[in-house]
């Protein structure tokens, strides 16, 4: 009976340790992944900011779509 108990405790100890190691690996992997996703998000934000820069939008609106600023007489203010 005692031998069985020792065996059980021993196996549990080994199992807990191996599980701990596994979780440690997956945790560090996930942390790395979170970091990468955050970084990717920042890069996308930079790309959006660059794409939305007024100079680029103005050039695109003018050259690609032929848009221009309205003249004062073309603006109607509604009360």
């Amino acid at each position, binding site marked *: 009976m005692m031998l069985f108990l020792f065996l059980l405790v021993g196996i549990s100890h080994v199992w807990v340790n191996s599980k701990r*190691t596994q979780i*440690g*690996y997956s*945790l*560090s992997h996930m*942390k790395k992944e979170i970091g990468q996703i955050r*970084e990717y998000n*920042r*890069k996308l*934000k*930079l790309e959006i*900011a*660059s794409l*939305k*820069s*007024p*100079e680029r939008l103005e050039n695109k609106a003018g050259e690609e779509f032929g848009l221009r*600023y309205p003249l*004062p*007489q073309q*603006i109607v*203010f509604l009360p």
Partner: protein
Amino acid sequence: MRIKDKKWIRIRIYITGICFFFVFCLIFLRAYQLQILKGSELSSLAKRGYTGKLILTSQRGTIFDRNGKELALSIEVDSLYCYPKKVKNKKTAATRLARALNLDKRDVLKKLHNSRSFSWIKRKVTPEEINRVRELNITGIDFTKENRRYYPCMETGAHVIGFASQDNKGLEGIELKYNRYLEGQEARFSRIHDALGRPLIFDGPRIEKQDPFNLILTLDKDISYKAQKALRKAVRRSRARSGVCIVMRPQTGEILAMAVVPEFNPNIFWKYQPYEWRNRAITDCFEPGSTQKAFLLAGALEEGVISPETVLNCEKGEYAIGSFIIHDSRPFGMLKVSEIIKFSSNIGAIKIGQRLGAEHFNYYLERFGFGEKTGIDFPGERKGILRPIRNMSLIGQNTLCFGQGISVSPLQLAMAFGAIANGGHLMRPYIVKSIVDQRGEAIRNFYPSIRRDVISSETAKKVRGVLEGVVRQDGTAPKAAIKKYSVAGKTGTAQKVDPIKKIYSNKKFVAIFGGFTPSDSPALVILVALDEPKGIPYGGVVAAPVFRDVGYWTLNHLNVVPSFRPATSLSASKARTLRTSQQDVSHSIERKEKMIAPRPDLPGSIPNLIGLGVRDVLKKAQQLGLRVVVKGSGIVVEQVPEPGTPLKKDRLLTVTFRPSA
């Protein structure tokens, strides 16, 4: 077994026992030495083998404009380094690396021959360059992550935002001023790793990582762009040395835009000269010229020594003070004070100054903030020069009335115009609206603050009224007028002092226009100054168009409703047309309503289905036993046969639907 043999066995046992004893003693002593004497040293040695430190360098905080658009942000990029001793065949490696990274071969070779164990090849490389280097597969070359600062709007707002170094330190502008908030602090973690170096367990950070804070500025990215563009155009056209354009909210002192030319791109700031980085709106000073007359007028009106209607003699363009003769651009005779400002008569200004008194005028200039720093949250501000009256000669006291013998920064001038615009309060200008943490919660907010009250609101109103005349067709700056909006302002064409001859130059000027719009309820103060424009140097010609362009665009951008006044409102005929067209529109709406009004259905005839939905049509058709052909979707706009047609058995009804508006 003989006794002799037995003895020999015993001796051997003893010898073996003694040997074992000695061995155990040695083991014990060694264990004692290792565990007790050298225990702590060896355990720390072992710990170093399986634990490691992880240093997370903090990423610099983001700078946003007032609408939450990114003006500066950091992202991780790869930097390339080498272990020179591990690189074999250095010459070939240098050639291939130089080609892949677009570097000089000799420089790369020099780095590969470095006597140190570590050497940077190229920092902050592009993803394409990384791929090219990876393909080369050279031993001893590796990458590491570093933060790089990006400024997506490039030149727009660059002089305000400034820039940060490769080592994450703010070097200029807001990046420098608020470096301690933007920088954050690096975190050090300890970790346990396995034999292959893979991390297993992380400990909590030894030094608590302090996330960097983000800044929200008062700048508006779009207004800044427009101001930069308009200023750039004016500087190019007039071939000026430099230019400044400030857009500010007079009620709060918030800086909406601060454009400076020559400009620079902060993404590659090292390619520009330091004089191009300088925010001239804050660091450069010049004589304000005739713009000074606005403050002279304010002081004189506040003291009650004149009124806008007071008539003064402008001496036909020539006025002697001691041995000096003051000239006007045109020979003016008797002029009202409002006309003196409108036509910018120097002699008239002297006459106003004489009524006010030099001491009083100097007092008002001090009250308007000249000769002291504005207190803006920006490094390198200069306070200009305002000398005490006792240190001025008689001519100096008189020429001060039209802006000579005083030096002011563009920002001081803008703030002084702001005081006239907002009813007499001199505001403290500010650029940072709030400092927020990574979750967006404000840790510090900045609010408008009044430095002092300079003039009464009644005086400010009178000054605004007089300054409106400047932009009229016969004033000095009709080019500053903005269609549909009222504008008040003052031009200035200040002579620069020739540094060699120590006299006022007849060729070098600073062209200035400062003003606000709409003048009855100012939403913006705009100050434009161009240094040494070639050709016509007048502020009303060179600087005023920048005011108009930036003002018109910004008022629209901020949805400021135009001020309809008799002079600028629609003409009577146009108004009539508008009223007529409005009547027409209402009439046509009425007619349309009449057209689609439901008519009562006659019994035994096709009902009126116009305006009904599909479900209602099918219901009615089923009740009357009609077959329906449905075309389109939405509500009924057409039906065949028409309403009122007598019902016949097995009649087909075609109904056309259109989406409702």
